[in-house]
């Protein structure tokens, strides 16, 4: 198990390096030099040179990458070109909002989706199963920006139940929670349906396996068979799906943050790309990639924990 964990983490670090190399290559390949694009056509040559030096763009590209990682290891992700504030501070300010949004959405999707999937299996072929099926496919089909805009219209503008914009008052948990409901709903709704379908499908497959018949032949109650004997196997594909889906959850956070004018990582990246603020883009991408890679590794380790057969494959 330890060897497996080390192997996965090493692979994760390699992915981080590759992503940053790709990012630098992208900056290098974009036509026109970033300084002139950022400063506009009327910038003086001195100002441009100054900016190029500040961004380190006069150095060879491999040196820029090495330098970036050397600084990153000490916690220095560079400085905002315009405000001169450390990128790490900007990211740390924005990150909690986005993480809270993404994790709330994910938790809501799991807490609602998994039991719905189980219920579908226990009541298979009944009206309840059909209703859950139709609703699941329905919510998967609705894009989350539509959910975002309509839920904003209905619950914030017309009914005035929940705030329309922002992340709530600082220090006021109730107001922050109220501000979280609609953005989280916009992201979670499709995932509820997705997870319910996924759990139902893998559960139906597991329920047909001989060991379930064994559990039945010993008269175990159906709820125990579903929740202990089937779910532990059936949840495995869902965990992989959720880990991969977290990338898409974080990217939907980008426009959900835009719709609800919510401060967060998504807003930070959008603004930085628009102003060619490369140090901010690089720093933010590194942090997001690191989060994404860590979640994938955590999911792999969790699967290995749940399924002893996977554990043995990677042993040694």
């Amino acid at each position, binding site marked *: 198990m330890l060897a497996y964990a080390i192997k996965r983490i090493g692979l994760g670090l390699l992915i981080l390096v590759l992503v940053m190399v790709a990012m630098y290559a992208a900056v290098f390949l974009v036509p026109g030099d970033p300084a002139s694009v950022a400063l506009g056509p009327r910038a003086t040559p001195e100002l441009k040179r100054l900016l190029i030096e500040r961004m380190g763009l006069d150095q060879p590209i491999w040196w820029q990458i090495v330098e970036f990682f050397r600084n990153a290891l000490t916690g220095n992700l560079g400085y905002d070109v315009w405000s001169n504030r450390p990128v790490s501070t900007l990211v740390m300010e924005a990150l909690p909002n986005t993480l809270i949004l993404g994790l709330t959405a994910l938790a809501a999707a799991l807490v609602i989706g998994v039991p719905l999937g189980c219920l579908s299996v226990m009541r298979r072929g009944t009206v309840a199963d059909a209703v859950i099926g139709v609703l699941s496919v329905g919510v998967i089909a609705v894009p989350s920006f539509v959910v975002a805009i309509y839920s904003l219209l209905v619950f914030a503008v017309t009914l005035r139940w929940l705030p329309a914009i922002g992340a709530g008052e600082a220090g006021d948990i109730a107001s922050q929670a109220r501000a979280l409901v609609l953005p989280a709903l916009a992201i979670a709704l499709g995932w509820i349906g997705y997870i319910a379908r996924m759990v139902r499908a893998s559960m139906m497959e597991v329920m047909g396996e001989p060991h379930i018949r064994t559990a039945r032949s*010993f008269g175990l109650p159906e709820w125990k068979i579903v929740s202990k004997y089937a779910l532990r196997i059936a949840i495995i594909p869902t965990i992989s799906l959720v880990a991969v889906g977290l990338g898409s959850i974080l990217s939907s956070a980008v426009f959900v943050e835009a719709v609800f004018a919510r401060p967060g990582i998504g807003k930070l990246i959008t603004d930085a790309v628009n102003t060619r603020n490369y140090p901010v883009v690089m720093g933010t991408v590194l942090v997001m990639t690191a989060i994404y890679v860590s979640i994938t590794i955590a999911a792999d380790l969790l699967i290995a924990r749940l399924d002893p057969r996977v554990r043995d494959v990677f042993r040694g």
Partner: protein
Amino acid sequence: MSGSLAASNLSVRYETPGGSVHALRHVDIEAHPGEVIGIVGESGCGKSTLVTAMANLLPANARIDGSISWNGIELAKLDAHRQRLLRGDEIALVSQDPMTAFNPVLTIGDQLVDFQHHRKDLGRAEKRARIAAMLGRVGISDAERRMHSYPHELSGGMRQRVAIAAALLTDPGLLIADEPTTALDVTMEAQIIHLLRELRRDYNGIIVIVSHHLGVIAELCDRVYVMYAGEVVESGEVDAIFHDATHPYTQALLACDPARFQQKLDRLPTIPGMLPNLTQPPCGCVYAPRCDRVLASCGTVAPPLVELSASHVARCHAVSS
């Protein structure tokens, strides 16, 4: 706990989109405490449907006619909850394939603790102690450590021993072993037969053993039911069936058993023809199309049960005439 098992005129059909499959037709079976009965026949003869009916595990599309009772209780008339209370308490099933019979992500000990869930009087530690003792009894060394193993860490023969131990832990009055040795190699098979023989000495419930392997049946059983195409075509004491087989199908089946060949043969004997389509069972004798002693009446009239001696019966026109 001990009781009697009785099926009389039992029929089971499966409702499928392609029509009704008459998997079991007017089957009579009787077993009393201390007896070991064998059910033998080729694949698709209804053996599994019969034991599934005994264990109350028929799928939702199965329709039961006639009677199957345990201790005088009509099994088919019980509601799902009462059926579940019998399973794993009075009736235990050792399933067919030990390789897939256990949950792959739970330890052996964990599953065997769960399987004793009807014993509300025992705590977890007591259940684990019973498991360790029972694993030792079925010949698994190092039982404490094995309880922490996952199924894939055990060999096939060991898993079949665990499956038998699991069934015995519930103190069943009726122990059903569905093809207990089919998935094992010959050495393992011999060991499991040996184990089952040991167990039957100090077990006073009923054991039902299903097999297409005649040797297994001959070794272990008191009475044998020979099934063909959903019917019991001949039944009797094990000696009567193996030494005095009367029904043409039983005779053909015995003739095909390589273990009974007297001399070296160039070709293995087979029974020509195929099983009838069970969506439309023939109106006469089910075996008539493959029988070498077929009479004029065999194609049109279902043969009656003919009593040959006290407990030896066969369903055949050729025997009655």
